[in-house]
C-alpha cells in the first residue's frame, strides 16, 4: 500500500520532460452514465427530466477523427485511417480507446461523434473494421439510405407506447451526414477541455488515462427535453436533429490518471 502511494506520488511529482519525437500511450475512457448513476444495461432504471422512467438495453456510438491539442497549442491528429472507433456499452473493451500519440501535456480532446461525410462516401476498401458494412452484428449501417448510424440507444420505458411486438420500447437510431442535399446532418464535433480535470501528461513508460463521462440522460434532457412518450422511435427523420443536438452535450471530463 505504502509502495503504491509512493509510486503514485513520484509519478505526479516527477514528470519527465517531453520529447515530441517519441510516441506514448493515451487512453480515452468512455464511461457511460445516466445522471448520478453508472449506466447498467438491462438493469438500471432512470428518470428523465420529464419524469419518464427508462431502462437502456443498447448503447453504441461512433467516435472518430480524434485530435489532441497540447499546452503549446500544437495539435496532433490521429491518422485518419486508424481513427474510427465504436463504443459499445455491452463490450467493456470497446469503451477504452487506446492511442499512441507524441509525448506532451494535452489540454483538449476533440472528436467527431459519428462518421464524417468524407469517410461515409469513401471507397469500400477504405471502410474496414468497425466501418465494414458487413458487420451485421453491430447494426450501425443503413443499407437502403447508405450511411452509418452514428448513435444508437434502445431501451424500455413505461412511457413508450406499446409497439407491434407488445413491448414498450424506445429506439433512437441517429445518423445522416447531409447526403443528397438532405437537411439532416447529425455529424457532431465534440471538444473537451481537460484543464480543470487534469492535463493528459503523455510520456513513454506511462499510460495517461483520460476518464470521460457520457451521460445518456442528456439525450432526453436538454433544450428542448425529449419525451419518450411523444417520440419513442427516432430514426433518420427531422426530429433526429433535436436528439443529436441534445446528446452532443453528453460528454464531460471527469479526471485524468497520469
Amino acid at each position, binding site marked *: 500500500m505504502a509502495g503504491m502511494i509512493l509510486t503514485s506520488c513520484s509519478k505526479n511529482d516527477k514528470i519527465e520532460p517531453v520529447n515530441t519525437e517519441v510516441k506514448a500511450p493515451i487512453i480515452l475512457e468512455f464511461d457511460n452514465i445516466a445522471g448520478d448513476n453508472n449506466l447498467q444495461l438491462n438493469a438500471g432504471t432512470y428518470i428523465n427530466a420529464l419524469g419518464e422512467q427508462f431502462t437502456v438495453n443498447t448503447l453504441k456510438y461512433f467516435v472518430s477523427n480524434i485530435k489532441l491539442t497540447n499546452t503549446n497549442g500544437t495539435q496532433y491528429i490521429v491518422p485518419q485511417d486508424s481513427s474510427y472507433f465504436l463504443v459499445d456499452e455491452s463490450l467493456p473493451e470497446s469503451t477504452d480507446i487506446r492511442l499512441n500519440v507524441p509525448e506532451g501535456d494535452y489540454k483538449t480532446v476533440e472528436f467527431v461523434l459519428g462518421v464524417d461525410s468524407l469517410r461515409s462516401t469513401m*471507397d*469500400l476498401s477504405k471502410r474496414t473494421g468497425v466501418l465494414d*458494412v*458487413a458487420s*451485421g452484428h453491430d447494426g450501425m449501417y443503413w*443499407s437502403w439510405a447508405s450511411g452509418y448510424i452514428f448513435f444508437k440507444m434502445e431501451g424500455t420505458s413505461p412511457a413508450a407506447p406499446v409497439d407491434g411486438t407488445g413491448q414498450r420500447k424506445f429506439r433512437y437510431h441517429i445518423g445522416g451526414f447531409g447526403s*443528397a442535399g438532405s437537411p*439532416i446532418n447529425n455529424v457532431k464535433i465534440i471538444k473537451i477541455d481537460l484543464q480543470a480535470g487534469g492535463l493528459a501528461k503523455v510520456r513513454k513508460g506511462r499510460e495517461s488515462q483520460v476518464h470521460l463521462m457520457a451521460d445518456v440522460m442528456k439525450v432526453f434532457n436538454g433544450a428542448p427535453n425529449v419525451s419518450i412518450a411523444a417520440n419513442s422511435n427516432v430514426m433518420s427523420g427531422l426530429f433526429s436533429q433535436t436528439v443529436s443536438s441534445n446528446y452532443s452535450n453528453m460528454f464531460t471530463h471527469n479526471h485524468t490518471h497520469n
Partner: protein
Amino acid sequence: MWRLWLMALGLGFLLVSCRKNVDEPQPPADDFAGFVKPANFPAPVYKLENNQVTKAGFELGRALFYDPALSRNNTISCGSCHIQGSAFTQHGHDVSHGIDDRLGTRNSPAIMNLAWMPSFFWDGGVFDLDLQPVVPITNHVEMDETVENVIRKLQGMPKYRDLFKKAYNSEEITTARLMKALSQFMIMCVSANSKYDKVKRNEAGETFTPEEQAGYALFKQMCADCHTEPLFTDNSFRNNGIGIGFNNDEGRAMITFKPDDKYRFKVPSLRNLKYTAPYMHDGRILNLNGVLNHYAAGVKQTPNLDPLLQKNGGLGLPLTETGKQQIIAFLNTLNDTDFINNRLLAEQ
C-alpha cells in the same frame, strides 16, 4: 509445290506454337475486352480506377450474381429478380417478389448501363454501386440474409476460394472484394447496341424509318428533357403525375426528408422497354400505350408534380394519337437484342 508450302506453313505454325508454350504467357482463353465505353456514350461515373474490370473479377461477379447462396435459405439469387431476357428486370411483376414469395413495394429496376448512374433504386438512397448489393441481400422481403453470413457461406465453398484467388490473388473474402466483384459484373451489363445506337454511330447504313424519325422528333420535343440521350435518363427525381400509389410511397423524400422531394422517383431509362414491362416505380402501367396515354391525359395534380408536365396551364403533354404511335415506334428502336442475348452476361 503448294503442298510443300502448306507443310512449311504447318511447320511454322508448330514452331510458333512451341515457342508460345515455352516462352510466352498463355493467350487469353477468349477475347474478354473488359469494360468498353460505347462511342456514343459519355464518360462513366463509376470510379473504374478503384475497381478495374478483369476477366477473373468479372467471372467471380457473374458467379455471385447467379448464386442463391446470397439469400438466407439459398433459394434466391440476384438473377432471380433480374432476368437477362427481361433486360435484368423481373418481367411481368408489378412489384418484385423475393424470398418465401414475399412481395416488395417497388418494381425491380433494370441492371443496365449502371456505370453511368450516380445513384441507385427508385429513391436514389444508395450513391455507390459497390454498396448497392447490401440492400437486396439484407432486405427482409428480398434475400433476408446478412453480408457477414454470405461471406461465411462463400468461405465454405471451394469454388469461391478458387474464384477469389483468381480475381484477387488470395482466397481472402472481404466485403469490398465481394461487392466489387458484383460491381464488375453489373457495370459490364452495357446496353448500347440498339437500332438507335447504330443509327447514331452510322453503323452499317442503319437509318430510322419515317415513322421512327417522326417519333424521334416528337421525343426530343416532349420527352428528352427528363429522358436525356443517350442513356435516356437525366438521373433526376421527378413526380410524373401518376398519382399517389397504393402504399403512399413518398419516394425520394424517404431519403432526403425534404417535403419538396415527396412523390418524386428516379427517371428510368427508356432502353429495352420491350423487355421490362410493366412500367413506373410500382409497375402499375402494363404497356407503352398505357404510358403514352398517361402522359397525354392521365397526369394528376399531386404535390411536387414536375413543372414540365404542367405547362401552358394544362396537365400532361399535347400528344395526338398519331404522335403517340410515332413515339412508340421510336422507343422500339431502343430495344437491344444483343444485350439480352449476350452469353457473357448469362448464367454459365
